[in-house]
């Protein structure tokens, strides 16, 4: 909720600055310009103050995201977020709620099964992450999804150790 109270204060300040200009009763351009400058200065001061206040918080969130990484893993033929994937996605959601960056979610599968079915399964995985993010307040227009199916493996070999690395959604900046 902290970001809302900061935003609220900023809006209140801007509003009072605008009110000040409106009530100044002067029609001269010089007065108008002076009032505008005062309002802009006040807004800038407020903004930099809130930036400073949240810089530490942002650093903490970015650190949390770096710790969990940008890849979320899935079980075979599954698009259900595992507990590990959920906690990783949660860290990204916390950061996305504070920044205004757009992201791209790339869904992938292992090599087992047919290619076009896997293309659909990769999309289902990317959508599962997107839907969870949207349910947690991230605007859907900020999220682009794409499926690569089994076409872009991280690990080329066969066997569960390789397959597990390939069943994933990668989060990338858009």
């Amino acid at each position, binding site marked *: 909720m902290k970001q809302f109270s900061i935003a609220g204060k900023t809006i209140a300040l801007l509003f009072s600055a605008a009110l000040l200009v409106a009530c100044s009763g002067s029609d001269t351009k010089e007065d108008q310009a002076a009032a505008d400058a005062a309002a802009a200065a006040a807004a800038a001061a407020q903004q930099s103050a809130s930036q400073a206040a949240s810089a530490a918080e942002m650093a903490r969130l970015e650190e949390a995201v770096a710790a969990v990484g940008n890849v979320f893993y899935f079980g075979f033929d599954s698009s259900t977020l595992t507990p590990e994937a959920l906690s990783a996605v949660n860290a990204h959601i916390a950061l996305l709620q504070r920044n205004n960056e757009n992201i791209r979610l790339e869904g992938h599968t292992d090599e087992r099964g047919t290619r076009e079915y896997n293309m659909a399964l990769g*999309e289902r995985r990317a959508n599962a992450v997107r839907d969870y993010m949207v349910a947690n307040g991230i605007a859907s227009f900020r999220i682009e999804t794409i499926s690569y199916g089994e076409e*872009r493996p991280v690990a080329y070999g066969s066997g569960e150790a390789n397959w597990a690395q390939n069943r994933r959604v990668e989060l990338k900046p858009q």
Partner: protein
Amino acid sequence: MKRLFVVLTAVMLAAIATSATAQISIVIEEGNRDATPIAIVPFARQGDGMPPDDLAEIVDSDLARSGQFQPMARTDMLSRPSTEAEVFFRDWSATNARYLLIGRQSMNGPQLRVDYELFDVTSQKKVFSGYEAGAVSDARMLAHRLADEVYEHITGTPGAFATKLLYISATRVPGANEYSRLTMSDSDGARPVVLLETREPLLAPTWSPDAKEIAYVSFETGRPAIYRQELATGRRQQLTNFKGLNGAPSWSPDGRTMAMTLSKDGNPDIYLMDLATKQLTQITNHYAIDTEPTWMPDGQSVLFTSDRGGKPQIYSYDLRSGKTDRVTYEGSYNARARVSQDGRSVVMVHQQDGRFHIAVLDLETKRLHILTSTELDESPSIAPNGTMVLYATKYAERGILAAVAVEGDAKFRLPAREGDVREPAWSPYISR
């Protein structure tokens, strides 16, 4: 319509060349035990210049690859006739050869002609005589057509040697996107031509029913889109550019409609696109995955894969009644159906004990028969004469193509010299 055609880009033109990396060659693993012994005598060479290829050798390999013939080694031949007058049946009845093929190839400038005769050694009679003629540059195709004739006269089934293959070949690049190439070759893997090369995924190559065009999915714009491309001119057209999946194109038997998978409305469903008007008709509407459409040869129904029952199975949608029926019941994973030209059998990817095999389902008896014994088999494609199934599998950690007879024991592999090969699509018959 014309402006919608995008002329080949420079990158693609540069890529239209024989690429050594795309070359696949045949390794025969197994033939039928009751394969018919046949003697194919090297053809006599007449006229100016030397023909570029040993055409008899190409016929020999074609027939051997089918698994239904066992060509005699040339070193075992007691004589090498090239005309009917030179044939002495005692030379051949002394061996176990049941048939004898002789021929003469002659060059006239850029034109090549092969005259040939096929004999039944047992009855000591001529079965058939004929000729094939065409450009020297198409010598290999002439030999394949000749092999088709021999095959049909002996087995009663048309041959499918004078056909083409499409496949995707890829070169891995450590730490970066691989190179994907859409490649077309003769049915024996010879004469590969790269039609498209990108660093983005390429998949689902497929043929138009007249074998003059192809369609495929390319991610070259960063997102999947379906393209159609004329083989003779290289001209191509982007058919779709929807949000989400744009995949699994399949041409209707009359060539007018393209079935495809789109997820523009939220989840993957099957759509039919009228190729003249670009009008879309949605034929499945289910929250499950519906994908991999393929047409029955009569054009009246479309088979597709759906996991609406929990696991992927094959379903059939009847265009007249709008009714959907489940087709496969055996096993927990049946996907990506392809139907034989006679409409009697369906090949598919079938999972058993965690392994993925190619299986064939007889639509009448409902019997499912597993054709392959490797474990990551996918993308089955049936020869136009219905005798062989080409598919993709893994061998020594690399993607390769392999083929297996629908009936009988014949098997062969088509490994690439390097890189991975996958998603083969066997062409329909090619008209002359």
